[in-house]
């Protein structure tokens, strides 16, 4: 993996990469299977008591790896911890649906939501938020708990050298089917080229999240296997509507024709991704195929013509001008978040230049990038980012366009506001009937196509590269990580 997990406290971490470790240490009440269906996990069954209350029956006889029994007290403790504003529960305070939890008896828990919310169960399946930690360990280690994680999962932490490796050992008392591997080693190798060389030298058995360049060479090696699943993310170029001329919907519509998604996917991305077909990832509940291939077809001449209609005339050096101002703006990207992000951004920059639009790329590290987007709305015209609807639900999938979610409180960094969208989106969020909910979200996405906040780019696959001797490896779209390592075996090599 490219970065150190830093902390394995699920109520604290915000970085998706840590999930590679979490998934093996912790369990949640409910889980999503590879086909994105809800399955029992630590809860064996559940039912809705009233619009805002869900009752869970817990699995009996489960123990945390430190010996603490798993029961209703543990669940209540974890949910309240995740929601505690004094504890650094940064993930949950970003607007999760859960309001509280109450013990009914030792193996029964009631979870309440802020309002009627159809996405509750999906939310509870998120390991980065609602993983169940051992209450004893949390109390024992206090602030240092992130270095001493204890869960109920198939593996437990054995050793951890910061910036080098995380070693997990088999949990002999795992409640599910026993893991076949004795231990899992996650090596931290920051550079893509080094990860590739390490794989070729057989220093690693599984390469997670290959880059386009790695795919190019590794797929040619004999016996190498590729595990592939559709991803859950959608990469896009976002417009900042507070940065002229992106306040002009005609400009935004014109530029939709300037980007060649198909070629970007097949060249610089090395077919690691498929072109986006709508404003949500196609695996997310409520997704509508907007047929962007036709609606936003790649046609630089059309883009230029539309820009001309919007008042932009060719100026010096091939850059368009209007009222004496050049069409120039900063395009911000944080390279290395997803495979090929920098490559795709540079390719888009050049395609924008073809229609006379001068985007100036600014690279930033992840944390400064987020702070910058939050605090400097006047300093960027576009940014490249990938949105992971991690619970595979349309509520989360459409949240970036919610006009109540503009910074500093939320993630609508486009400062996008559209009345038609907002009405349909809010209706869908509280609609308990799935069919009507899909209809609401469809209307919401149709509104986005007419008044676009993004140029949707592509959906990355979820890919792992495996040595020839790795068997039984499974990969799922959810949360951008691999799951179900228990089934893997390594043949002699």
């Amino acid at each position, binding site marked *: 993996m490219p970065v150190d997990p830093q902390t394995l406290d699920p109520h604290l971490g915000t970085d998706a990469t840590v999930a590679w470790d979490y998934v093996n240490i912790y369990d949640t009440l409910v889980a999503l299977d590879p086909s994105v269906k809800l399955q029992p996990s630590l809860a064996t069954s559940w039912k809705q008591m009233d619009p805002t209350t869900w009752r869970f029956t817990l699995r009996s006889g489960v123990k945390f790896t430190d010996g603490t029994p798993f029961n209703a007290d543990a669940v209540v403790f974890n949910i309240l911890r995740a929601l505690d504003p004094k504890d650094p529960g940064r993930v949950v305070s970003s607007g999760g649906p859960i309001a509280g939890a109450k013990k009914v008896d030792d193996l029964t828990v009631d979870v309440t939501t802020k309002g009627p919310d159809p996405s509750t169960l999906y939310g509870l399946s998120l390991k980065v938020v609602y993983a169940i930690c051992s209450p004893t360990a949390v109390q024992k280690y206090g602030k240092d708990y992130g270095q001493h994680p204890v869960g109920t999962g198939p593996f437990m932490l054995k050793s951890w050298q910061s910036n080098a490796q995380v070693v997990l050992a088999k949990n002999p008392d795992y409640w599910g089917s026993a893991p076949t591997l004795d231990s899992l080693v996650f090596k931290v190798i920051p550079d*893509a080229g080094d990860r590739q*060389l390490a794989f070729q030298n057989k220093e690693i058995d599984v390469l997670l999240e290959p880059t386009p360049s790695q795919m190019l060479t590794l797929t040619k090696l004999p016996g190498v296997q590729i595990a592939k699943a559709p991803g859950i993310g959608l990469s896009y170029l976002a417009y900042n509507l507070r940065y002229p001329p992106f306040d002009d919907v005609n400009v935004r519509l014109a530029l939709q024709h300037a980007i060649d998604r198909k070629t970007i996917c097949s*060249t610089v991305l090395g077919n690691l991704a498929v072109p986006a077909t709508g404003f949500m990832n196609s695996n997310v509940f409520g997704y509508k195929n907007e047929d962007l291939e036709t609606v936003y077809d790649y046609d630089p001449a059309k883009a230029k013509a539309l820009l001309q209609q919007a008042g932009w005339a060719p100026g010096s050096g091939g850059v368009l001008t209007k009222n004496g101002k050049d069409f120039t703006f900063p395009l911000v990207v944080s*390279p290395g978040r997803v495979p090929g992000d920098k490559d795709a951004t*540079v390719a888009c920059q*050049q395609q924008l230049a073809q229609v006379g639009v001068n985007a100036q790329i*600014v690279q930033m*590290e992840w944390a400064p990038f987020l702070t910058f987007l939050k605090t400097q709305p006047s300093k960027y015209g576009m940014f490249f980012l990938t949105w992971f609807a991690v619970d595979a639900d349309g509520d989360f999938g459409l949240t970036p366009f919610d006009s109540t979610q503009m910074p500093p409180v939320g993630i609508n960094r486009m400062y996008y506001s559209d009345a038609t969208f907002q009405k349909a989106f809010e209706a869908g969020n509280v609609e308990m009937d799935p069919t009507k909910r899909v209809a609401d979200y469809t209307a919401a996405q149709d509104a986005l196509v007419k008044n676009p906040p993004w140029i949707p780019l592509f959906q990355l696959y979820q890919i792992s590269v495996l040595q020839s001797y790795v068997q039984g490896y499974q990969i799922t779209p959810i949360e951008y990580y691999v799951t179900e390592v228990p089934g893997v075996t390594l043949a002699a090599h």
Partner: protein
Amino acid sequence: MKGDWTRRIALGILVFVVGAAIAAPWIAPHGPVAQNLVAALKAPGPGHWLGTDQYGRDEWARILYGARLTLEIAVAAVALGLAIGGAIGFWAGMAGGWVDAVWMRLMDIVLAFPYLLIAIAVVTALGPGAFHAAFAIGAYLVPSAARVARSAALSLKDRDFVEAAHALGAGRWRVFARHLLPNSLSTLWTFAGVSLGRAVIFDAALSFLGLGAQPPQPSWGDMINSGRDYLLASPVLTLAPGIAILLTVAAFNFASERRAGLS
């Protein structure tokens, strides 16, 4: 003597690099940012002497334009470092006493921070980019420029002609402008030569870390960083910019060293 031919080669390389920097728009066969996605990662051959990168951009053109970018940054950085550091050094050296002690102690404190930390700190605060990189490298050069200027001032201060000028009632500025500066020029010139070499390396390091000139600008350090991902598919993308840096820096070092007669 060996000194002659090494220096001649060094000067030859410098002439070539500077020439490439100036003439890049005329001698480069392609634009440095012009993409051709379907012609990506071509091996070196006719049409593309050094092949193409992952966007189908001509590597040779990017090396040539890269020389331009690198030299611009290096010259700006050295000019900045020399102007500020030189002023501090001459002031400290001429004034002596506590002024000298305080300035030099301050410079020692700055020198205590590893150079890359200074540069990273400056760029983190200001944001990445070629201009800020030049500023960061210039800031790093200030203490060493100050030391060089100070020792030049000290060695000249007690010389007869300077003392005579003082005795004749010449003001400080006049002594500085008429005597100290002209007589220190060769020392400063040597310092500038060595510093240009270091500035080229630091610029490469910063852009390797993503803190220097931003893509699609053809910066040598950034070319190594992104070429590295394609090390196995196309090693030339990593080798070529590295060799360009090595030759340029070595040429600056050889050229200025012989001037100083260090060996």
